[in-house]
Structures are given as C-alpha cells and as structure tokens.
C-alpha cells in the first residue's frame, strides 16, 4: 500500500494521537510509563471495547443504538438477580455469562422488531426501548444495589493472567479477560470481513435500496445486527458487574457517548458503510487513555466529560472537512445517475 494512503487513514491519525498523548502525559508524570498503568488501561478498556464492537456493527449498518448500556446493565443485573433468587452458585462464570448473553439477545430482538419489522428510525426506536428496559428493570427486577454477587463472578474480578512485580513501583496485574477479549475482537473482525453477513452489513450501510436489489434481506440483516449488539452488550454488562464486584442497576446509564465517541473516532461513519475493528480498538484505547490519565496531566477529573466531548467534536469536524474536500476533488457528478 502506498505511503500517502496510509498516512491519510484514520487509524494512522489515531496512532499518532495516542503516541503524542502518551509522550505528553509521560513527560508530565513519568509514573505513566509503568506496566501497571498499561495493564490498568487494558482493564478499563475490556468492557468498553466489547460495547464498542457492538456499536461498530450497528454504525456500519447505517443505524445507531443508544440502548446498549441499558441492555448491558439490564442483562448483568438480571443475571445476578436470577442467580441469587434461585440460589445458583456455580464454580465458574460460564452460567452467568450465558444468562446475560441470552437476556441481551432477547432485548436486542425487541429492538430488531421495532427497527427491522416496522422500520422505525434507529435513534428513536432505541431511545424508546432504552426507556422501557430501564424502567422495567428498576420497577420490576430491582432497584437496589447488590454487593454480594455470586462467588464465581466475584472471584473472576481478580483472576489475573500475569502478575509482574517490577523492581520498584506497584504490582502489575494483567487480567485474564485479555485473552477472550482479544479472541472476540478477532472474531468480530472476521465476521465483518470474511462472512457474507459482515459484507451485508457494510452493503446495508452503503445503500438500503441497492442492497435489497442484490437479494440481501434487509430485515434479516438488521434483525441479526441488533441481536448481535444485544448479545455482546449482555456479555459486556455481566463482565462489568464482575469486574466491579457489585451489581448496581443505576450503572452504565449515560455511558453511551463514550462508546459512540470511541467508534466514531475510530473512523466509523455515522452515515453507515465505513468502519474497522482496528480503528475501534484504537478509539477505545484513546478514550480510556484520556479518561484514566487526565489527572496525570494536571487536569481535574471533573473535566473528563468536556475532554471527551471536545475530542469527539474535533474528530467529526476533521472527518467532515476531509469528506467535503474529497467530494470536491472527486467531481464525478452523481446527478446523472439518479434518473430511472
């Protein structure tokens, strides 16, 4: 691939931003360059990345989902409530995880019905369902915080793959989740690039009518997309509960922006049709980096939200300017093609 093209890619810009930021933070406070801090950034990125992968798929398909944090906490919290109610206490985490994924897929299926069967604009549909899901959870499933989550989930929070004690400084722990998260990330990438479903998702984002004419079922593709987001959000939700070592039904709500920001900064186009897993990973890392290390930069933590808003704003502005420049240079009029 030629070098110029590589430079213009979104991923390149992100890598540069991440490196630059690391250099600046590191210059201000050298403790940034520690294995412990790196592993912490990873740990705080796992759940975000899973959510982001789901959102990436929706955004590529040309939609938007704002219900995923609610779906996540709904699934995680309900799984815990169910387990406590029936006194299930399995030795490992596969049961709660499976439960949460199933719940997530069911909630995603409800989104699918609204979006795929009735064609409701995706923002409005998911805004509506997020109200429904949250309302139902807090009214009927529970509104109190559970601190004694099932033992397996609790233990999982400290399941480390690696523990490294450097000569000086804090103990660096790499959570075991790094392995499944990396695997899932690769699987999602394969799904998007190496399966017809994945290509259909891109096609759908590129143009609904042209996709339909190819013989790809729009409804089925959309239904699968929203069920996929539901499932992966369920997984993210239960892992969040486990890592937090408590199930708080009020959590995650309102966190959709961080995730959408990460995905959009990663180069996904909100109009659909474009976006990569690699870009999303970088976007998530960048957001985690900023959220976790603002303090090291000497900025008070209360500026976190402003920082993310500003970052997103800069990202979309740059993308919009690039897009209009490209369109001007392209100069292939599309108006000839609309007739017929």
């Amino acid at each position, binding site marked *: 691939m030629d070098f110029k093209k590589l430079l213009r890619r979104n991923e390149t810009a992100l890598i540069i931003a991440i490196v630059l930021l690391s250099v600046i933070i590191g210059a201000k406070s050298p403790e940034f360059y520690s294995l412990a801090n790196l592993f912490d950034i990873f740990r705080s990125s796992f759940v975000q990345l899973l959510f982001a992968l789901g959102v990436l798929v929706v955004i590529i398909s040309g939609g938007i989902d704002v219900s995923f944090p609610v779906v996540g906490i709904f699934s995680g919290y309900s799984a815990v409530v169910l387990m406590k109610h029936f006194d299930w206490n399995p030795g490992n985490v596969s049961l709660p995880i499976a439960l949460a994924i199933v719940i997530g897929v069911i909630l995603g299926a409800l989104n699918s019905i609204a979006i795929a069967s009735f064609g409701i604009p995706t923002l409005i549909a998911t805004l509506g369902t997020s109200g429904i899901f949250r309302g139902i959870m807090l009214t009927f499933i529970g509104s109190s915080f559970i601190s004694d989550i099932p033992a397996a989930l609790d233990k999982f929070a400290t399941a480390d793959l690696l523990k490294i004690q450097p000569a000086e400084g804090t103990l660096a722990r790499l959570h075991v989740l790094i392995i499944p998260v990396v695997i899932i990330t690769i699987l999602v990438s394969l799904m998007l690039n190496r*399966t*017809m479903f994945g290509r259909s998702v891109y096609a759908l984002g590129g143009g609904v009518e042209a996709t339909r*004419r190819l*013989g790809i079922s729009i409804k089925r593709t959309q239904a699968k997309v929203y069920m996929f987001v539901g499932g992966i959000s369920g997984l993210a939700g239960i892992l969040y509960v486990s890592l937090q070592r408590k199930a708080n039904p009020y959590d995650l709500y309102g966190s959709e922006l961080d995730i959408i920001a990460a995905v959009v900064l990663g180069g996904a186009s909100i109009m659909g049709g474009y976006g990569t897993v690699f870009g999303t990973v970088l976007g998530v890392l960048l957001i985690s980096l900023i959220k976790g290390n603002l303090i090291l930069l000497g900025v008070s933590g209360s500026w976190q939200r402003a920082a993310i808003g500003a970052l997103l704003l800069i990202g979309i502005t740059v993308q919009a300017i690039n897009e209009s420049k490209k369109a001007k240079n392209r100069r292939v*009029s599309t108006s*000839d093609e609309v007739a017929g």
Partner: protein
Amino acid sequence: MSTLLTAEYGVENIVKSFGGAKALSGVSLSVKSGEVHCIAGENGSGKSTLIKIMSGVHAPDTGLIRLGDKSFTKLSPREAVHEGVQVIFQDFSLLPNLSVAENIAIPTYISENSRFFSKSKTKEIAANALDLIGVDIDINASVTDISIASKQLIAIARATNQGVKMLFMDEPTTALTRKEIKHLFEVVEQLKERGVATIFVSHKIDEIQEICNTITILRNGEVVADGIMRDFKRDSISEAMTGLNVSETRIAPPLKKASTKVIEVRNLITKPTFLDISFSIAPGEILGITGLLGSGRTELAEAIFGQYPIDSGEVIVEGESIRLNSSPAALKAGIGYVPPDRLTQGLFLEQSILRNLVAVGVDQYQSRGKRLSKKRLAEAGEKWIKDLRIKTKNSLNPVTSLSGGNQQRVVLAKWLAMNPKLMILNGPTVGVDIGSKREILEIIRDRAQEGMGFLVVSDDIPELIQICHRVLVIKNGQISKEFNESELDEEVLYKELS
C-alpha cells in the same frame, strides 16, 4: 442445461401505480431462454417499472410473474435472485462504499448461497467477469472514484455472472462508446448461446434491431405492439412508441434575428469534466445539448447554475459577467434550472402543490415585516395552475397526487414564476406521458417566442430535433460538433453521439 432451454419467463396482466399515477396498466409479455427480447418505449412509458416488478424490486398492484416453472404474485428481490434473475439497473445500483471487486462479486456469493467471503475469490470473480466483457478497470478502486462509463460496465459485469438465467438490461448502453457497445453485444450473443433469457431495454432503434429477436412496445404503461423483430420496420417501431407520425412533429418557432445574447459562456474549464467549453444563446433561442451519460452534459448545466464547480471561465448574462460557483448569483442574474430528476431534486413530494409552486421565490411572497402573505401565495398558485393547465382540484393537495406530466409542470412553473432570462431544462420531459410532453414542449416554444432563452439538456434526440434551433454534442468534456437547424437529423445525431 435442458431445463434452461425450455424455461420461460414473463408477466401477466401487471398493474402498478405510484401515488395517483398509473405506471403500468395490464402488461403481459414473455421470453424464452436463449432469446433476446426488447422492451421499447419513450421516456416514462414504464419500461424500468416493468423490469423492477419482474425482478422483485417493486410489488405489482395485481398480476402474475412467471420465472421458469414458478409463478409469483409477490416476489422479493431475494427470491428473484435465487431463480437466477440478474438486473443491470438503469441507475446501476452499485454500493459506493465497497470496492469494484466486491460490487461485481457479491451477486455470485448470493446465488451460491455462501456464508463466507474470501478476498482472493472475490478478486478472481471480478477479474473474470471484467475479462468476459473485455474491459480493464482497477478492481481495487472504490466505486466513488470511477467514471460513469466504468460504473455502467461494472453493473454489466456484475449481472452477467455464472448463475444468471434471466438477465434484464435496462438501457445498458447510455454511457458507452460504440466500441464498448459492440463488445457488450458479443457478450449478449454468448449468453444467448448459454441459454440465458435476456430482456433488453432501450429507445435506440438501431441497437434494438441489431440485438433482439422479439419485441414489446410500451406506451403510457400499455403494450401497444409486440411480435417478432423481423416484422417491425424502423418507422413502425417509432410510430408505435410515440403514437405519432414522426415527420410532422417539429415545433421550434422561427428564430428572430437578434444582435444581443442572453448568455455567453466562455472557456469554461473544470478538470476533468469539461475542458474549454464556449457557446452562446440568443433571446428566444432554444439550444439543445446532448451527449452520453457521463459526457459532462448534466455537469455543464449545473455548472452554469452554480451547482457544479467551475475552475475557470466566464459566464455572461446580458452583457454582465456573473459570479461563478454560486446559485444565488445565477438566480439573481436570471438563470433558472429544472433538474433531471423531479422526484428527488425537483419536488417536495409530500408537500402541497401550492408550496411546491412557490418554492423558488418564497421571499417574493412576503409583505412588510417578513410576514408571509397567504393571499398572494394563493393567487400565485391559482395563476400557475391555470397557465400551465395543471390538472388538480385543489392546490393544497400533495404534489404526489399528480401524474408525472403534471408534476413536471409544477417544477417548470416554479421556475417560470421567476421569469428567468435563461431557462436551463435538464431532461424536461423524462417520465411524462405523450400528451403532457407535447404540451410541455409547447410551453417552451411559447416562452421562447416571448424572448426567453432556453438550454435544453437531453438524451432524447427526437425531442431535441422537435424543439431546438441548434444542438451541441458533448464528448469527453468538449463540444464535438454543432448542428444547425437545417442539419438536425436523428440518424446523424446518433452517429455523432457514440
């Protein structure tokens, strides 16, 4: 193979309406495998609609679709594809975010029902398909970055894949040069031998006669003639298409001598779309511009109106040079523009006829304090509905309730209301019935007699001959030839075109 040879494809009694207007009323036809069947008809006669119904894109209101030994009253594109139907759509219907290779290969994956997708296989399929039609396009390029002719070739390559049993070609040659067309026809012959049933849509009679075995002619959504190609002569086809005797149709008014110009275009350059274009139009003159799809004909019209960038050059309206790349400046100087697609560019579809009629000059209808004068609005609506004989009972009805011809009059009226000095019409009669077409051309004639200058951009050669004083042919971004009133001849123009 043997089943292919006996297979038959067709429709029975198809009726389809859009909003208030009937696009097809009771159409039947059939094609056998190994046969090339032509659907001919004027703009808006319903050819594309018929193809979209046979390929499942539109659902018919009533009627039956037969694909091989299966019959459908309701057909989805998916089912059609699995029955071996492929379509070269008039608008190509490509996916802008995917590569050339992917656009070409996806139908193959779908007809094979595969779940997985491989990059190397995709490239192989695409390279083979392009090879088959004998063209060389970078398969890794993005579809947004290639020319219109290449897009059309990709649409062709995509549809002529291995799985195809029934191929629809909706005006597949509009952007192609003669050499490319020749190659395409060779491919059609090969497909014929393979036993593929082909439906070929065109209004170029030469092409139809060259390639087709059988023919169905549509007019206003009805079959007016069908049969074996050999039984049709050139004149009988065009007569059936238009319902008129061709020779008597020229209606351009005599051109008065004038020393002034309404517009002068000097050395317009926008690389790579057009390289140095100059022409002028006298008051009352109707100048035609034609060229292949992608030749720059639409871009030229839009550039003068400030909707397409101009690198350098000069546009002079009544002696004054106007600011380039600005539609407000063009409007102020007295240029009007009727875009080619009224559904997406011309009309505010669900809004009322009245609101559509006043859309360009909204600011004219305000009285003191920016207040909108409902009375003057209504008066203007009345006037234009009467003047252009728009058939409606109530100007508050949505514009979707009108037929194509009446909708087009609404777009025209919206600009006539500004009383422009130069009116640019891009495809002024696309998708309107014969009666309306005639009336719209008469409206143009009448205004020209009053001194309004016209620039008519169209691919409808008979129409240009009917109405224009002069016709320019654009090729590769340059004016390749100018035809004066006395030189206007259908066959000569077609020849110059491709």
